[in-house]
């Protein structure tokens, strides 16, 4: 356990090595949220509701999805691709530590820092902008939203790891990663709630695992899902986690057989 706590501390130090870079990264997070926030604020200028959303629920959705996204999708796993293509994976393989646990620890460090700073930044935005936000007072949606975030977090770890492990077969994983970022930008619900899209597009997108990274936990928090929808969503989420975990483990086993330590 001490080893992994040390890895968490080292990851924090690594993240803050270039201070200005670190500050600009956080500025970027705030800017991204503000861009979406101002867009929705403008859209509500002449209307009370859009689809079934009031200004209060949509602004809460935007700000909360920022915190959820920073926690769920905050990861160091994307470095795995370069680790493999440069042959640096050999360094990890000869150490008496578990590869997946090392990256789980690094992810934990990233997520904790993201969560801490994300809450402060959103609190600052709330105090400056004073938007009408929806505060959930029921305990049940809060607990279930927490569970949904946990499912999304594990799922995203597997998803990002699968992208990294592609490097066993591809010389460059940047292009698939770019495609993945574009997909995540829209299909997680970062820009807009997925249920505003027309049918059957909306239903199709909600069948994909991406909604668990942002949309589903926030909808649970807002209390806009029925008990059946929440239970069904959790069950499908767990199945997706199982499938992605299996794919990840299989890729790791097969990839290691192919790995030749090129570049070392």
């Amino acid at each position, binding site marked *: 356990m001490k080893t992994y706590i040390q890895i968490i501390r080292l990851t924090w130090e690594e993240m803050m090595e*270039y201070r*200005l*870079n670190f500050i*600009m*990264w956080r*500025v*970027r997070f705030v*800017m*991204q949220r503000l*861009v979406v926030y*101002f*867009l929705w*604020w*403008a*859209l509500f*200028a*002449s*209307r009370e509701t*859009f*689809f079934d959303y009031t200004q209060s629920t949509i602004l809460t959705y935007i700000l909360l999805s920022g915190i959820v996204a920073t926690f769920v999708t905050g990861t160091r796993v994307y470095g795995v691709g370069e680790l493999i293509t440069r042959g640096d994976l050999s360094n990890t393989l000869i150490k008496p530590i578990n590869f997946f646990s090392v990256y789980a620890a690094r992810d934990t460090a990233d997520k904790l820092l993201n969560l801490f700073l994300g809450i402060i930044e959103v609190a600052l935005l709330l105090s400056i902008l004073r938007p009408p936000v929806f505060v959930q007072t029921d305990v049940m949606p809060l607990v279930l939203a927490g569970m949904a975030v946990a499912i999304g977090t594990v799922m995203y770890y597997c998803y990002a790891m699968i992208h990294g492990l592609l490097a066993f077969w591809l*010389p*460059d994983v*940047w*292009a*698939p990663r*770019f*495609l993945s*970022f*574009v*997909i995540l*930008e*829209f299909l997680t619900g970062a*820009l*807009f709630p997925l249920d*505003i*899209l*027309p049918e059957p*597009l909306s239903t199709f997108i909600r069948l994909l695992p991406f909604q668990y990274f942002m949309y589903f936990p926030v909808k649970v928090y807002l209390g806009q899902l029925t008990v059946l929808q929440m239970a069904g969503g959790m069950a499908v989420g767990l199945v997706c986690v199982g499938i992605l975990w299996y794919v990840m483990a299989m890729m790791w086993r097969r990839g290691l057989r192919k790995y030749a330590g090129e570049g070392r």
Partner: protein
Amino acid sequence: MIELTRYFRLWLKLASQSFMRELLDRWNAGLFLAGKLMRFAFFVAFLLALFADAPIIGGYSKEQMLIFFLTFNILDTATQLFYREVYRFRPMVVSGDFDLVLTKPMSALFRVLAGGADPLDFYMLILYVGLLVYIVIQMGVVSFISVASYLLLLINGFVIATGFHILVLALAIVTTEVDHTIMIYRDLTMMGRVPTDMYHQPIRGILTFALPIGLMMTVPAKALMGLLSPWMLLLSPVLGLLFIVLCLRVWQYALSQYASASS
């Protein structure tokens, strides 16, 4: 004139090398292109979904909103087509390789700004221009003057975008920070996907004059649709010119601070 021709030939050479490099791996190029197409399609789907619930948003119709969005895309893609090299500048400064650029008999700014065109953006640009022409013909409300004003203001928007990229390069020399700065610029320009006069004050004022995203993206589209006031048509190029002169001054200052630390 001779100097201009020389730089144009130089740019063609650098661009052709960059095109060959980028298209070397067809699989990766295809994925990048697919990503760009998807990003465009997703936002159009979002806009269409909004208009399914409201025929007019912020005083604009669906077709007008698409013209704003396509103008944003044309400008954004054109700047990426020409200025992709900016994204590769940081390693050059950190490693000291920028010294090699400074010793060459050409403008260092030209080399680090326009030395690596992106072919994929060229394909996307054709798509956006084609779609814009199609929508404009469908609307059938444009005149020669509005098209001429649009092109003039689009060039002005490109000049302002050039200024922003020069500022990012200057900041990279002074601080070695580029990655997030250029992405913050990209994030901010995203606000130009819809007309900036839709935003509340003071955001609208900031986006028009302090961070001239409105001048870059909204003003040309409004000119095309005949919605621009004459004084704005005259003021925009003046502001664009002032902005680029300021950015060039900042670049000169930054260059004087370059310490060649890692070489």
